[in-house]
Each structure stands twice: as C-alpha cells, then as structure tokens.
C-alpha cells in the first residue's frame, strides 16, 4: 500500500474499525513509514483538540426562557403555528418518498394583473403564496419561472401560452429592472406631494400643536419639554428629580446607577443573580459544576463518570475509560496475540497449539512426528507398531542365527553319532523302537514298567495276592489261621480268651462262665459260649470255626422271634457290651432289631428273659429266636427262660 492509499484508512485505523486483513496491512505500512506515523499522530492530536470545544451547562435561566416561549406557543391555536421544518430536509420523518418536485411557476402578466406564485404541486409543506406584486405596464405575456427553495430560475422548457397567444419571456434581470422602476416612481410621487403642500404639518399646527423633536405636543407641554422637563406621575419634573421620584423607596443609588434595593443588598453581600435568586460566586461555581456532572474529589472537580470509572477500577487511555484487563486484551489483540487457557500467545502459536503441536526450536511439530524424528535420529526404525533399535536388532538377529547354527550343528553331529531326539532327550537310534513300545532300560536290559515294579516288590518281600501285593510274612500268618488285632497276630481262641477274660468270664470245664451270673442263677448252669456244633472249649476246626466269615468292613446283626409270636424278651451282649435289655422280639425278620458289627471276631451272647404271649400259661415252652447277618446266613437258638447262649461271629 502507498501512503496515499493508507490515508483513506486513517480514521478507521484510529477508531479500530478496519477489517483484520486491511488492519494488518495498514499497521505494517505505518510501522515502516515515518511520514504516515507522523500524520496519524498529528491527526490524533488535532482530534483531541477538537473534542475540547466547550458546551455551556444548562441553566435554570435558559430553561425558564425556553418555557416562556413554549407558553407563548401554547397560547396560539395549533393550526396557526408556522411549520418549523419548512424548507428543511427531515430525515427523521418516516414518510413515503416525496414525488419529484414540480418547479414553481410564476407567470408575469400585464400591468393590470398580478404575478402569483403557486404552491408547489404534490408537496405537503409548501411555502406561503407569494404576495401580489405590481407588474410593468408593458403588455407582456406570462412565462413559467422555476422556484427551487431559495432560487428562482426560468424553466428550460417554454411555458404554455396565455389566452392572448402572444408570449414575452421575462428573465430575472428584467423582473428586477421592472421592480426598481416602480420603486423610483413611488418615491417621486411622495416627494412631490410633501414639497408642494406639506399637508400633515399644516393640519397639526392648526390644531394648536407644536412640533417638539419628532413629536407634536400641546404648546404648554412643548415649552416644558423644551426646558428639559419630563412628565412623570401627572407632573412635569426636572430630569434628575424625576429619576429620584421614580427610584426612591424601591431603588438605591450606587455610584451613578439606580439599583433595586434588594439587589443592592445582595450585591453588597457579595452575591450575584443566579437561577431566579442570588448566590455567592463559590455557590454558583459549585452548583454549575454539579450541574455539569462534576463531583468534588479532594480539591479537584472531576466528571462523575470519571469517578465512577475510577471506582470501577478503570483507567483512561486515549480519552477512553477501560479496565486494565480490557486494555491488555486490546493491546495484545492489536499485537496479534490470542488468549488461550489464561495465557497470551502469538496467533500463529495458538493455532499450532490448538492443533496439538509442540514447539521445537523454531518449528511446530506434532508429538508423534517429534517422537518419530528423535527415534530415527537415535537409530531406531519402525517395525509395525514397534520401534526397534537398528544395531541392537541386528546384534540380536546375529546372535539368534549363531545359536540356530550351533543347534543345527549339534543336532547333526548327534544324528551322525547315531542318536535320535525323543521326548526332549537324545537316545541311541536302536533304543527308539523299544521306547516307542513303552519299555524302559533297567540294568542294561529292556523291561516293562509292570515287570520292573513286580521285581522290586518281590525283592522287598511282597507276594502277589490276587491283584494286591502283600508282605510275605502277613500272607504266611493268615495261612496259619492267625488274625490281626491291631499290631498283633493272634489265634482266634487267644483273642476270644482275652476278650472273655476282659469281660469277666472265667473258663470252667471248657465253658466260659460269668461268676456273677453263676451265683445269681442259684446253681443254674452258666451260659455256654460255644459255637454251634463245636465241642466246648475246643479249637474250632479251620474253615468251620465261629459261624460266619464276612468280607465286609462292617456287618449288621439281626435278631428276631422265629415262632411268629411277638412278645418274647431277651438281653443281648456283643463281646462284653450289653446291647439289648428286656428287648421284646418281633416276629418277622423284616422287623428285627439291627445291631452293627465291626470287622473282627465277636462273641454274641443272648439270654432269654420272658416268654412272650404264651410265657405264663406255657412255662415249658422255649424262646426260639433267629440271629443272622443281614443278607447272609442266620442261625436259630432255642432257649428256655433265663438260659444264655453264645456264638462266634468273625467279620473279615
């Protein structure tokens, strides 16, 4: 832009009213051009001076005069009020556009006629019709003359002809000449009449009046007036005494002037007329200052808006009040900065930041690009989503290749040596078929794992018993007929003897007898504790001893009445523990009492107590009861009342 072009933008530049792009261009130019800078500075200075033009404060006197005039207007009918806007453009009025103005036509007619100014056609607020004027006596025809507000000019087009048909065109100069001639004629006639006859003076003198200055007065009054007297309050007085007469009472003479008494008093007190009253200059000054919107702050009078602005924390810059923040914002914005998250940044930087870039030296780059640059410069390259250090990657690759080569060499050397790699280890190639068959090498020979285990168990003294391996000693003891009781191996009769002794029985004549029972029964035979069919006290033969051998961890002993008659009662012991006392037997095995038996040899002892339903009437009858192992075999005992019988039961 040149200096001349910039000049067009001076005002808008000062008022900060330029579009962004233009403002930048203008600012650039001004920064570089000292001449334009000087021009801008001078323009600002001259505008500041222009703004100092004073405006007097609105006074009560001013307003009073205005109100009087308004009252005078009110006294007139509205219709008679003149249009104050006549001849003015009034853009404030929102009316329809005016039709094109018609030129005002003035027709100049012969002497006996008048010239009239017609109202403009189509204009609502026209001027008043021109007064009738005399026209020259010459026979003239009319000519249209255009009147446009303040000027009269002939229309370009010739006007229509009058009825006579003869048209003489008058120019404005001719009009003026005609008017001047008429005026001269009037003066001439008047002067002639005055000089020849002096008609008014003659008439007044004959009425007894005398001319005194410009006035006609009665003769006596004229004499007084000629002596310098004045007529006041019905009498002729000397001028000085007339003044005193008029002034005395209400007025006081101050120097050469007569002043109203009250005014004199006020003025002596140092007061001046002010706002329909009197006030000291200081009061006037204060009132006027307040009226002008000033406020006293300390010794200074300050505009109220300035005080309010200062209270609001504003500061004044270039005749404008603004907050410090707004000023900073304005200056920063002018300097091309933008505010971002509480910080002022150059506009370009803000754009980059908004795009998520970071500054590196003089450049703006995205973080990703920066990381990429740094990694590349550090010798990394991207492999998919992973950054790999080129040298380290090469070293690792070399190492892996070397390891692969070493492994391959080892593999082939092993293969060459006749080995094969099976299940994670190298074995001679000839062993591979046996291994595939599940064989293992033990002591230089190939065998199966089962054989190996059996050999080991045999070595350790075990003997296979069916599917189980048992110690050879245990097998031999069992074959000898011993049974295991805890850690001990006993013969069955040894175990019975121990148990019976523990239960308090004693053996007499091959029978086990309880001493208490023997005495309480009064000589009755002690209950026998022998197996059915076995000789008393004899060792039961192998395979027939006791009664039952059960291959169960536990068995259930059942006792019932085989005579199908309910009601017989018994006592029952298993080993030495009394399990039933006066137990009433039931007839059916399904209703029998059930007692648990653990593994081992047990002595079951039964004593008949009552005979049931038939007991009392048939004392010879016996108690017949069945004892059995559930699901196994059973035996039947027939006891007389009070008789005890025992049986062995071996649960294995």
């Amino acid at each position, binding site marked *: 832009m040149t200096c001349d072009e910039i*000049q067009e933008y001076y005002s808008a530049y000062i008022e900060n009213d330029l579009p962004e792009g233009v403002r930048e261009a203008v600012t650039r130019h001004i920064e570089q051009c000292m001449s334009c800078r000087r021009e801008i500075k001078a323009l600002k200075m001259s505008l500041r001076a222009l703004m100092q033009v004073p*405006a007097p404060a609105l006074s009560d006197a001013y307003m009073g005069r205005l109100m009087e005039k308004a009252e005078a207007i009110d006294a007139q009918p509205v219709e008679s009020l003149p249009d104050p806007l006549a001849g003015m453009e009034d*853009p404030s009025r*929102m009316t329809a556009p005016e039709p094109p103005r018609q030129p005002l036509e003035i027709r100049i007619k012969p002497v006996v006629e008048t010239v009239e100014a017609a109202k403009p056609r189509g204009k609502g607020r026209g001027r008043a019709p021109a007064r009738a004027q005399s026209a020259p006596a010459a026979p003239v025809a009319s000519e249209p003359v255009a009147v446009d507000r303040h000027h009269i000019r002939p229309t370009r087009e010739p006007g229509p002809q009058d009825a006579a048909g003869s048209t003489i065109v008058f120019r404005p100069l001719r009009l003026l000449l005609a008017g001047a001639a008429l005026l001269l004629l009037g003066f001439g006639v008047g002067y002639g009449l005055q000089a020849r006859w002096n008609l008014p003076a003659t008439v007044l003198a004959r009425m007894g009046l005398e001319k005194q200055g410009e006035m006609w007065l009665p003769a006596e009054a004229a004499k007084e007036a000629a002596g310098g007297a004045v007529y006041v309050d019905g009498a002729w007085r000397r001028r000085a005494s007339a003044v005193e007469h008029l002034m005395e009472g209400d007025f006081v003479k101050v120097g050469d002037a007569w002043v109203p008494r009250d005014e004199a008093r006020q003025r002596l007190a140092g007061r001046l007329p002010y706002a329909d009253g009197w006030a000291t200059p200081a009061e006037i000054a204060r009132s006027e200052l307040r009226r002008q919107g000033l406020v006293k702050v300390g010794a200074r009078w300050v505009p109220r808006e300035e005080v309010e602005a200062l209270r609001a924390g504003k500061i004044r810059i270039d005749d404008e009040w603004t907050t410090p923040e707004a000023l900073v914002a304005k200056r920063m914005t002018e300097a091309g900065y933008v505010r971002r998250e509480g910080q002022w940044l150059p506009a370009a930087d803000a754009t980059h930041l908004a795009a998520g870039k970071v500054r590196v030296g003089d450049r703006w780059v995205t973080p990703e690009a920066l990381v990429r640059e740094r990694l590349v410069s550090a010798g990394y390259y991207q492999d998919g989503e992973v950054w790999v250090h080129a040298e380290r990657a090469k070293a690792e690759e070399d190492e892996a290749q070397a390891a692969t080569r070493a492994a391959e060499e080892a593999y082939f050397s092993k293969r060459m040596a006749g080995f094969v790699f099976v299940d994670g280890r190298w074995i001679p190639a000839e062993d591979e078929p046996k291994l595939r068959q599940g064989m293992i090498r033990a002591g230089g020979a190939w065998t199966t794992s089962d054989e190996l285990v059996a050999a080991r168990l045999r070595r350790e003294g075990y003997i296979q018993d069916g599917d189980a391996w048992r110690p050879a000693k245990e097998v031999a003891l069992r074959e000898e007929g011993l049974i295991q009781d805890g850690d001990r191996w006993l013969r069955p009769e040894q175990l019975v003897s121990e148990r019976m002794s523990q239960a308090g029985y004693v053996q007499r004549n091959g029978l086990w007898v309880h001493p208490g029972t023997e005495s309480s029964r009064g000589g009755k035979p002690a209950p026998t504790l022998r197996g059915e069919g076995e000789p008393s006290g004899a060792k039961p033969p192998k395979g027939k001893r006791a009664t039952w051998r059960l291959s169960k961890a536990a068995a259930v002993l059942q006792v019932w009445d085989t005579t199908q008659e309910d009601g017989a009662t018994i006592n029952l012991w298993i080993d030495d523990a009394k399990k039933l006392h006066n137990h009433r037997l039931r007839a059916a095995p399904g209703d029998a009492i059930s007692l648990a038996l653990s593994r081992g040899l047990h002595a079951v002892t039964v004593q008949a107590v009552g005979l049931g339903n038939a007991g009392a009437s048939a004392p010879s009858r016996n108690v017949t009861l069945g004892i059995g192992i559930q699901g196994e075999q059973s035996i039947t005992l027939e006891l007389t009342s009070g008789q005890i019988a025992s049986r062995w039961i071996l649960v294995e």
Partner: protein
Amino acid sequence: MDQERTDCELMDAAGVGDKEAYRLLVERYYRRVVSFLSGFVGDPDRAQDLSQEAFVKLYTVCRREGSKGRTGEASSLVFTIAANLGRDELRRRGRRKEVEMSALQDHLAARDESPEQAAARAEMIQKVYGALDELPVDTKQLLVMRDVEGMRYEEIAATLSLKLGTIKSRINRARLAFKNAFLKRQAAGYGRGVHA
C-alpha cells in the same frame, strides 16, 4: 422512570402541553446541541442562542404533529433543525469574527484550572474554531457531528440521509482537512511565541 420514556413518547406528551416532557427532551439534547452548534458556528454564546431557537422549533413540531411518522430517537430531527439554524447563521454572518478570548475563558472557567491553564485552553479552542472556520460548511458539519458532538456514524447517516460508507469516507477527508488547518494555526502560534 422518566429516563425510560422514549423520545417519541416525550414528543407526544409535549405535543399535548406536557412541559415536564418537553423539559426532559431539552435536558436530553441540550449539551449535544450546544456543543454541536458551538463547533459549527464557532461561538459558544451564539450557539446557546441558536440552541434555544432549535428547541423552540422542536416544541412547535411537537405541538403541530407530536411524534407522528417518527420512530426511535429524536436526534435526527433535533440535529436537522440545529444544522439548518447553524447554516443560516453562517450565511447571514458571512466571515466569522474571532471569538473573544475573554468570552471563551468565561465558558471554560467552570473547570478546576489555574488561570494560565484556562488561558492556554482558550487559546487552543480559538485555534480549533479558526481551523473549523476554514472548512466548507458541509465538511465542518460532518466533523462537528462526529468529533465535537460525538454522534455515531449511523446517526449522522440517518440525519443527513446518506449512506454509511459515504459518511465514513467524508469524515475521514474532513478530519484530514481539519488537521492541516489546525496544524497551520498551531505552527503560526508557535512562531508568534518565539518572536514575542
């Protein structure tokens, strides 16, 4: 409450004889009109007289037609009247006489300034008036409306029935012309000061 009444409302009320409404209208525009006329005719005293005439005319308009056909502010109407009065005054008076320094100082006396400061300010304002007087009437009117009275560009455009762009462009030219005239007077003043 009265401050909230629009110009049109006040004009309507004044039109039916409400003097309070008329007083409010005068108070609203007094300073603006007087400062405008003061800059326009270059004479604060005469500006006050003319402003009174302007407000009388405004009252007559109110009486005749109220706010009929107008909307918004009365500023356009008031300044149209004032500008016409100012033009008539300049036309009637011809070349402006320089304002008496003493008269200027009277107007400036209200401010809390020392006599020296008031005199310096009066001298500067005299130069402003002189520089304004060198401008063509149209140019002066625009400049005074904008920079003395402080009217908005839109208000000026509405008052003079011109386009906004035209107004801005003319005001820019008016400012440059005023600046040149004012600087010339400033330089002359400095010259006088040196030789004195």
